């Protein structure tokens, strides 16, 4: 895609987000959660967004991760409830594995959710064949999903399984994430599934979802920062704007450093993904751990210097902060990402 086309797309995205359940409207109705509407999914399909990242030979636009990431940043900025980020990063992988699915993915007829690795003792396992039992980890995009991608261990072999949610033995229980998004819990009883691959495929799916969380966080922190900067310039205490207090200025400067680094990490990650869609992506673990270690703290400091208003439900910062908590935790927390970083590999890979 040409830069001109990308800018046009992003303009459309921003405009569409601003009139279709924008964050201001959702914040005012936060008691109902950060709820998505299934109808928005088919409208996103009509706008062509669902085919954006699909290969051209599968009827898509063949946009790279760099382009998808620019869109995902807008998703973060508006804290969208629809799992479009997940779709953009996983659809190409899925369409490559099962080419016949591309059409349904692009039209919105097939909607995928992804389960994180399960933590519980009754976590999903296979019975030796392709039948699934047990409880899946936390699912993103599960509310209106038609299919789930579930990482699991079958007789000590890791597998990524595709589950049709119309199949027998699927139990869906309501739950939500701390940022208000719906995150129903799924468990299975002898549910049939399709195996897409082994350990490498499991890790690739989770890492793609983690990458989307990194970029979403960059959008979230970017919007949270802009909101706060604007507020600090307006809010007068001690006879002058808060933004003129040196203690506040220094805090904002610190947070700005974090924001710039996060944006840069997201950009570097996009480059790695586009250069090697099958992996490996050395920046992934660094960037994902950065969300938990730095971005979350930066957002906490934005709340701190905004004062009381920033702990009220009606203020957007509250919701940005909670969304960052989700991003920091799902698909590999900071601790588990740090554990993956190979110092020599990172620093001597050139």
């Amino acid at each position, binding site marked *: 895609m040409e830069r001109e086309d990308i800018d046009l797309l992003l303009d459309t995205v921003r405009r569409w987000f601003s009139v279709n359940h924008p964050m201001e409207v959702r914040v005012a109705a936060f008691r109902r959660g950060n709820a998505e509407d299934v109808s928005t999914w088919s409208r996103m399909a009509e706008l062509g967004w669902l085919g954006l990242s699909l290969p051209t030979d599968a009827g898509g636009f063949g946009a790279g991760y760099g382009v998808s990431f620019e869109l995902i940043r807008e998703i973060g900025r508006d804290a969208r409830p629809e799992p479009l980020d997940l779709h953009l990063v996983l659809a190409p992988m899925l369409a490559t594995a099962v080419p016949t699915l591309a059409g349904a993915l692009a039209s919105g007829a097939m909607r995928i959710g992804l389960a994180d690795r399960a933590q519980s*003792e009754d976590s999903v396992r296979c019975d030796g064949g392709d039948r699934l039992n047990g409880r899946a980890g936390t699912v993103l995009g599960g509310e209106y999903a038609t299919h789930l991608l579930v990482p699991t261990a079958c007789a000590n072999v890791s597998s990524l399984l595709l589950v049709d949610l119309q199949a027998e033995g699927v139990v869906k229980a309501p*739950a939500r994430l701390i940022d208000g998004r719906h995150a129903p819990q799924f468990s299975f009883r002898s549910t049939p599934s399709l195996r897409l691959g082994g350990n490498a495929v499991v890790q690739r799916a989770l890492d793609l979802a983690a990458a989307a969380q990194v970029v979403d966080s960059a959008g979230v922190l970017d919007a949270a920062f802009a909101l706060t900067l604007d507020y600090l310039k307006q809010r007068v*205490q001690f006879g002058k704007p808060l933004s003129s207090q040196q203690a*506040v200025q220094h805090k904002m400067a610190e947070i700005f450093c974090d924001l710039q680094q996060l944006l840069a990490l997201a950009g570097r990650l996009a480059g790695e993904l586009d250069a090697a869609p099958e992996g490996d992506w050395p920046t992934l673990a660094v960037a994902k751990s950065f969300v938990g270690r730095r971005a979350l703290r930066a957002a906490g400091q934005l709340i701190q210097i905004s004062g*009381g208003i*920033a702990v009220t439900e009606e203020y957007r910062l*509250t919701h940005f902060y909670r969304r960052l908590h989700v991003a920091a935790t*799902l698909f590999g927390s900071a601790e588990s990402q740090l554990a993956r970083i190979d110092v020599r590999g990172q620093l001597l890979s050139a």
Partner: protein
Amino acid sequence: MSIFQTPELRAFRAEVREFLQQHLTDDLVQATRAGLHLEREPMARWQAALNARGWGAPHWPRALGGTGWSELQRYTFEEESAFADAPLGDVHGLFLAGPMIIAAGSPEQQARYLPKVLAGEEFWCQGFSEPNAGSDLASLKTTARLEGDEWVINGQKTWLSSGHHADLMFCLARTDFESKPQAGLTQFILDMRAPGISLQPILTMDEGHSVNAVFFDNVRTPRENVIGKLNHGWTYAKELLARERVNNAQAPRTKRDIIELDRMARRCKDVTGRPLIEDLRVRRRLASLTADFVALESAVLGVLAEQMSGKEPGPAASTLKIRGSELQQRVSETALLLLEQAGIVLSPDYGGGLLAPEGLGWAERHFFRRVVTIYAGANEIQKSIIAKSILDM
């Protein structure tokens, strides 16, 4: 030997435990554990039970209902209460309004208000902050004008914790419009049922309701409902805020929380089935919280010792507030880290603990605790107080 291990203190702790075992009923414990924001009834019931034992307000002077305990006794009492999940009483009456009336109120006010605080019969709230007077409290705009034998109050206040439970408010309002901002303020006692007062709930990040906005439309209060001297309200406010900041350190409750984290780390397992506590990084994290806690506790005990001998805490209270509030946030952050997915998935009605019972309430606690470094004077304000009032910078 630990400073808590003297024979006297051990005997005292046993006495407190025995009292808690006998009087702290299951429903009170459940109410304390169930949510961040207690209803009035359990708080009042527990306060009445403490008062019947003579422990209604240990930190008050003995003549007015205090216990005459040492700081270690007071701290031990608060610690055992926290360990047992006893409800907190009305902190506004016990730690703010009460001590201000003791320090500056008339004998009539002391006789009228203090016994009701002790007995848990009247609850208070604090009318200080305004929408445009947060960190810059002295710029507040609420006015009080004398009309005959009554003061007439107009304006609005915000961040009234527990305002919806309160019978009375201590309210800082402007009575002199000519002098510099700090010099023209007076402390008033308002009846929350007075005509012209209207409350509006403010929901916080934890999705709970504990704070309110309040509007005054020609609210009348009798002439004698001024605490202390006219136009001296700022001095009383500074003293009150220093006392509040000692309380904000929340050392006993934080100790309880760290113990809960340790328990969680022993019970919860990682993806490989190994208890979290076996991970060196987890142990180090808990150890560093513990070390920072003991440092906080030591400083708190120093200030409590002065307080129990009748001395006001002064600006040093700011150090307790800064370190105590930061630690509270780190504790709940650590809980969410340990819980991983169990910390971010909630039941539809926002109950925690959906994936692991240990997760119950931590997300709410963590989100609500973003405010502890902001309320009672943001930590940035505390640092300015330390720099100016103590260090003379």
